[in-house]
C-alpha cells in the first residue's frame, strides 16, 4: 500500500526536476521527522519529510486533520524542534523562532488592547525596529487589504474575515523572507473564505513572498498554489507534489476549468487510495 521512501523521493524530484535558475531555495527540508512521546511508545507525527520551496513560490500543503501539517508548520516557525532531520530557510537551519518568518495562525490571535494599527506593528515593536517608515508601511498594507479605515479601531469591532486580514498584514509588516500560513481561513464561512483567497492571491502577486500555506481544503490549495504537497497521516509524510499550471491572476471562475477539476480530483483520489480519509 504505502509507497517506499525512494518512490516518494522519486516522485517529488520528478516534479522539481524542471530546469531551475541558480537562486537558492527559500525553504529546504531534509528527512524531517518528529515524534511525540505517548503512553504506548512514540507517535510519529512526521516521518522523513523532504521538500523544497523556491524563492517567491506559493506552495500549499494539503492533508486531512491529524496528518502532521501543523507540526510541520510549527517546526518551520521555530516553535518546535524536529527529532531528526533539518529545515533550512535561505540556507540556514531553523533552530528556533526567527525574525525573518511571518506566521499566520488558524485564528487571528489579535491582542484586544491594541488597535488594528498597533496589532499590525506588533512585530516591529517586538523586534525594536524604529520608526515612522513602518507606520507608513502598515497603513499601506492595510490599504492593500482594504482596511485603511479601520486602522484605529479595536479588534472586537471587526468581523472574523477582517481580523484574519489584519493577521496577514501583521505577518508581512517586518518584510519576512517567508510567510507561513496554518489554515488561516479554516474558521471563516465559505463565501468569506473565497473572498479571502482572492485577497491573498492579490497580496501575493503584489508582494511576491514565498508562501507555505497549510490547509485541509483541496480546492483552496489548488486555487492558491503553484505547487500542492499532498500529506497523508499516520505517520505524516508527503506522498506527492502536484504542480498547478493555471495562469494568474486566477479568478473564482477558474474553479470551473477542466484542469482545475482534474487536479482536485487527482489529489482527492490519492487520499482515497491511501485510505487516509477513512476514520
Amino acid at each position: 500500500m504505502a509507497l517506499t521512501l525512494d518512490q516518494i523521493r522519486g516522485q517529488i524530484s520528478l516534479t522539481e526536476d524542471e530546469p531551475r535558475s541558480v537562486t537558492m531555495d527559500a525553504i529546504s527540508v531534509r528527512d524531517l521527522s518528529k515524534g511525540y512521546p505517548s503512553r504506548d511508545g512514540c507517535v510519529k507525527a512526521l516521518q522523513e519529510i523532504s521538500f523544497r520551496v523556491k524563492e517567491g513560490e506559493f506552495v500549499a500543503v494539503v492533508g486531512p486533520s491529524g496528518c502532521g501539517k501543523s507540526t510541520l508548520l510549527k517546526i518551520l516557525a521555530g516553535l518546535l524542534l524536529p527529532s531528526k532531520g533539518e529545515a533550512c530557510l535561505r540556507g540556514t537551519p531553523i533552530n528556533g523562532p526567527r525574525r525573518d518568518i511571518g506566521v499566520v495562525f488558524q485564528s487571528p490571535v489579535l491582542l484586544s488592547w491594541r488597535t488594528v494599527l498597533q496589532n499590525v506593528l506588533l512585530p516591529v515593536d517586538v523586534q525594536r525596529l524604529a520608526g515612522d517608515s513602518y507606520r507608513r508601511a502598515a497603513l499601506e498594507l492595510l490599504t492593500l487589504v482594504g482596511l485603511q479605515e479601520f486602522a484605529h479601531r479595536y479588534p472586537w469591532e471587526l468581523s472574523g474575515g477582517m481580523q484574519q486580514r489584519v493577521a496577514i498584514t501583521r505577518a508581512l509588516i517586518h518584510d519576512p523572507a517567508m510567510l507561513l500560513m496554518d489554515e488561516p481561513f479554516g474558521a471563516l464561512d465559505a463565501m468569506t473564505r473565497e473572498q479571502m483567497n482572492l485577497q491573498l492571491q492579490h497580496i501575493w502577486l503584489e508582494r511576491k513572498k514565498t508562501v507555505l500555506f497549510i490547509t485541509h481544503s483541496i480546492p483552496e490549495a489548488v486555487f492558491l498554489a503553484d505547487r500542492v504537497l499532498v500529506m497523508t497521516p499516520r505517520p505524516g509524510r508527503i506522498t506527492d507534489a502536484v504542480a498547478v499550471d493555471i495562469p494568474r491572476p486566477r479568478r473564482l471562475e477558474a474553479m470551473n476549468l477542466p484542469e482545475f477539476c482534474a487536479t482536485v480530483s487527482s489529489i482527492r483520489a490519492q487520499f482515497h487510495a491511501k485510505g487516509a480519509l477513512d476514520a
Partner: protein
Amino acid sequence: MHKGRDIAITVAIFCVSVLLGELIVRALEVPTYILPAPSKVAIALWRGFASGLYQKHLLHTLVETLLGFLLGSALGFSLGAAVALNRYVEYFFYPYIVMFQSVPKVALAPLIVVWFGLGLKSQVVNVALVACFPLIVNTIAGLKSADEDRINLMRSLAASRSQIFWMLKLPTALPFVMAGLEVSMIFALIGAIVAEFVGSSAGLGMLIQSMNFNMDVAGQFSVLLILSILGLLLNRCILLIRRRILFWDTSEKQQPERERVII
C-alpha cells in the same frame, strides 16, 4: 425622561422607608439604646461633623485603609507574579502561601498590635495583610491565563521572556488583577476596622467601640452610615479605574447595566 422617573422613584422609596422607620420606632417606643430613630441618627451625624470629630477619625481610617491597600496590593501582585512566572518559586513557596491564606488574617491583629504598637503603622500592616491575598490568587490566575496561540505568536516573533510578560501576559492578567483589587479594597476596609477594634488611638472603628462603651447607639449608627458610604465610594473608585484601563475587555461591555444600579 425615563431616567428622571427612576430617580424620583428611588428618592421616594428612600424617604418613605426612613419615615416608616421613624414612625415604627416612635409608635413602639423602642428605647434609643436598642434602636435609635432615623432622626436621632441624623442628629448624631450632624453633631459629629459639626464638632470636627468625625472628620478627624474618618481621615485616619481612610489613610490607613488606602496605605494598607496600596502596600498589600503591591505585595500581593509581586508575590503572585513571582509564583506565576517562576516554577521554583511556585514549587517551593506556593504551599506556604496557601497555608497562610487559610488563616483568618484578622486573628493576627492582636499579634500585630504587640509587634507594631497602637499607631498607624500597626493598622496599615494589618490592612496590607488582609488586602494582599485576593490579589495573590488573582494575579497568579491572570498571568497564567494567556492563551497558547498568543504565546506562540509572541514566540514566533522571537520575543524575549520579558517582552512576552510586558506585551502579553500582563495585559491579559489585568482583568483578573482589577477584579482582585475590587475585593482587596473591601477587605482593606474590614481590616482597618478590625485593627482599630483591637487597639488604636483613632479611627472610625475605635470611635464605634468607644461609643459602644458609652451606650451611644445613635452615634454608632451614624458611624456605620459613614462607613457604608466610604466603602461604596472606594468601590466606585476602583470600578472607574477599571473601566478606564480595561476599555478593551469585551466582558466589561456587559457591565454598565449592573453598575448603574449601584448609583
